[in-house]
């Protein structure tokens, strides 16, 4: 039997209701998806069933995971954060500017760390061979960028508004337009890979990947804000998106800095 959008919508609603009930019964707010989220079918065989083993980082400053790999100017080139200038021609689509701050849970900027992005082109097609979507490739757009955060924790990208694209989770499944982000903190425990969305996308309610974040406020934090002050005259529209890293870090190392 073909799995329809209606089936998935019902599963999403049931997961959401179950979460609301847990919170109403006193369970903590869940900022992240559960790894076991059946409406996203690929998660079914790819999540552990055993509980994770907890490690209290405050008991051991020597943990390898409390430090982070370092990245620097050697690891990026000057135009790596401008996805519209990486080929001889100009990519097709609406140019956008995406900027924001990388912060830790205390609201402090994470400086000099690596931010990597990847995305579909304006037609909703990735420059990836396994990509099956029959939309045009753009020879002037690979859809990959990287940068280092500055002294105030800011990152900055110039790119093309990505298109939504179909995938095969169920019949007529479409991903809302998004940009994938990969970021590092000051500790490996803060590692984050996520996706940024654009305001008011009508596909939000139907997308099991976005809806895997069952907390309404947490899900909102994945949506960028249109920011006219970031729009560049005669060039691009601006979006602001701050990223807050979860996971403990080594506060005793930071003290006195």
């Amino acid at each position: 039997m073909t799995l329809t959008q209606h089936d998935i919508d019902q599963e999403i609603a049931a997961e959401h209701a179950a979460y609301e009930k847990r919170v109403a019964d006193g369970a903590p707010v869940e900022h992240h998806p559960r790894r076991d989220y059946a409406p996203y079918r690929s998660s079914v065989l790819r999540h552990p069933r055993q509980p994770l083993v907890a490690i209290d980082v405050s008991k051991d400053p020597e943990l390898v995971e409390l430090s982070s790999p370092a990245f620097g100017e050697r690891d990026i080139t000057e135009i790596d954060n401008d996805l519209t200038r990486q080929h001889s021609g100009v990519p097709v689509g609406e140019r956008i500017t995406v900027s924001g701050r990388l912060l830790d849970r205390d609201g402090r900027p994470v400086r000099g760390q690596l931010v990597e992005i990847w995305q579909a082109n304006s037609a909703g097609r990735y420059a990836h061979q396994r990509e099956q979507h029959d939309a045009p490739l753009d020879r002037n757009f690979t859809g990959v960028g990287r940068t280092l955060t500055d002294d105030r924790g800011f990152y900055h990208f110039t790119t093309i508004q990505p298109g939504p694209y179909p995938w095969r989770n169920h019949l007529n499944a479409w991903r809302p337009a998004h940009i994938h982000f990969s970021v590092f903190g000051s500790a490996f425990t803060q590692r984050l890979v996520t996706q940024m969305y654009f305001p008011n996308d009508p596909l939000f309610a139907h997308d099991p990947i976005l809806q895997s974040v069952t907390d309404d406020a947490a899900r909102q934090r994945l949506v960028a804000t249109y920011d006219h002050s970031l729009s560049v005259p005669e060039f691009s529209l601006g979006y602001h998106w701050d990223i807050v890293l979860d996971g403990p870090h080594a506060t005793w190392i930071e003290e006195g800095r």
Partner: protein
Amino acid sequence: MTKIDTSSPENVLPTPSHTVGPFYGHALPFKGGEDVAPLGHPETVTVHGYVYDGEGRPLPDALLEVWGPDPDGNLPAVDGSMRRDPASGGYLGRNGVEFTGFGRIQTDADGHWYVRTLRPGARGRNAPYLSVCVFARGLLVHLFTRIYLPGDAALADDPLLAQLDEERRGTLIAVREDSGAYRFDIRLQGEGETVFLEFQ
């Protein structure tokens, strides 16, 4: 709202995780990502294995990151894992002599991966280990685990290993092969499920 007001701590809430998806191939893997050890270093170890799903099928689209100290237990603070070529914009690879401690490896079509890095040294009360972060399509939040190497007396006193029963402990200790390489498989679910970690 996605402009975070840092003046009030209750507004500083974490950005949710999402799956890495299937299409990160142009973005995340880099040339030499699996060759972390400086060329010809005498303390080089090779660790390899497969990543399996709950039905024992290997994942052709998993991405592993490996992070570890040098043989003296010191954590590197140098960049240069993914040096770029300013002329072509492509990857230059590592510089061949510096140890950055960071590796990133995509599983191949068979679900196989390897890393060649330096034998990690011990830190504090812990037996030596490599930290591993696992990403994959279908995995909504990455998973942390550790690779311990067999034959080290410190394994007996390691605070993490000590709290696991024997079967589960075994999932974190690589197996030495006749070739001298170490085998470390990652099972995301089911029988022999790898121990995954949560840092608090």
